[in-house]
């Protein structure tokens, strides 16, 4: 148990918060890239032995993507595209390892938080987004660390698995 759809869901939230600082067109392109690429990668045959790397990549991407929010100014188009591509790769990869691809439907809609986040930003409330991004970073650091923790009951499969 590594949180199931939770890491990709948090990555989608981080991307949404990040894209809030991009121009509307760039944000739309970013979201489209996320949806298309994540769906494509979710059906790729990713070996189960890659799980550690994939989850670590997802947590690291959450940290990097949430860090955009702390940057000042508008997110450049190319940068927004790159972050969206990165998020889609890790979101799709984690879902590819999940028992059900439908978990993608739980994660992807969260990227739509870009819309209210952009609204908050326009109203001069960017600090709220920065606080949320910091919480995401804190959770991602903890999530990544948990991978290196000696076995805990949480990571041991029980008879329900």
């Amino acid at each position: 148990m590594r949180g199931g759809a939770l890491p990709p869901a948090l990555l989608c939230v981080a991307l949404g918060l990040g894209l809030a600082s991009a121009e509307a067109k760039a944000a739309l392109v970013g979201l489209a890239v996320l949806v298309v690429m994540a769906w494509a990668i979710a059906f790729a045959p990713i070996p189960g032995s890659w799980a550690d790397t994939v989850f670590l990549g997802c947590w690291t991407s959450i940290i990097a993507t949430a860090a955009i929010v702390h940057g000042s100014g508008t997110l450049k188009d190319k940068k927004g595209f790159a972050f969206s591509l990165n998020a889609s790769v890790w979101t799709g990869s984690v879902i590819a390892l999940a028992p059900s691809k439908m978990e993608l439907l739980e994660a992807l809609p969260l990227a739509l938080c870009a819309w209210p986040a952009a609204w908050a930003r326009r109203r001069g409330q960017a600090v709220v987004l920065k606080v949320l991004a910091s919480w995401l970073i804190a959770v991602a650091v903890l999530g990544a660390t948990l991978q290196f923790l000696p076995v805990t009951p949480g990571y041991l499969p029980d008879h329900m698995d």
Partner: protein
Amino acid sequence: MVCRLRERPSIRQRALGWLEVAIAFGIAEATPAYAHVGTGFPGGFESGFRHPFNGWDHLLAMVSVGIWGAFLGRPLIYALPVIFPVMMVGGAMLGMFSVPMPPVELGIAVSLLMLGLCVCFAIAAPVWVACAIVATFAVFHGYAHGVELPSAADPVGYSVGFVLTTGLLHVLGIGIGLLNGRPKGIFVTRSLGAAVTLAGVWFLCLALSR
């Protein structure tokens, strides 16, 4: 035309009414005994989200951080709710890896006492002092969470839950702190600070008596 006055319920009837409400709440709150209640995302996230509500020491400290931040204004009003969860995660990691620490219960009790005093006397600490105080106490609170984390069935969901609750409690504290702008608002917030200080003394006595 006869106008019948509505009869007021007797004290006994009112007591029975409240009893019925209490029983209804009791039934609604009662949870069946699931053997795997802590398993999976709902179990881990929910137990993590509820965790800070289970202890008054954690809850009061987090709300106090928010109130103090509101007293101190920018940049601490948003810096403290960032520092506390981040440092709490640091403390949780120390707890998970069982790194030795000074008595955690004592640290948490002192945190309540100090934060209560800061709110009660509206202490306008310099930015770095406020950050240092909050960061230090956050480590103790995080350590307590971290030690309990390995027993959770879904540690990732649990972590997200407790970080989110912590942040929301800060936001609640900031909301209370915004009362300062209203007449008698400062009296309310400083009284809350005094209450937190008393709670801190109580928890300190408990920690020392162990």
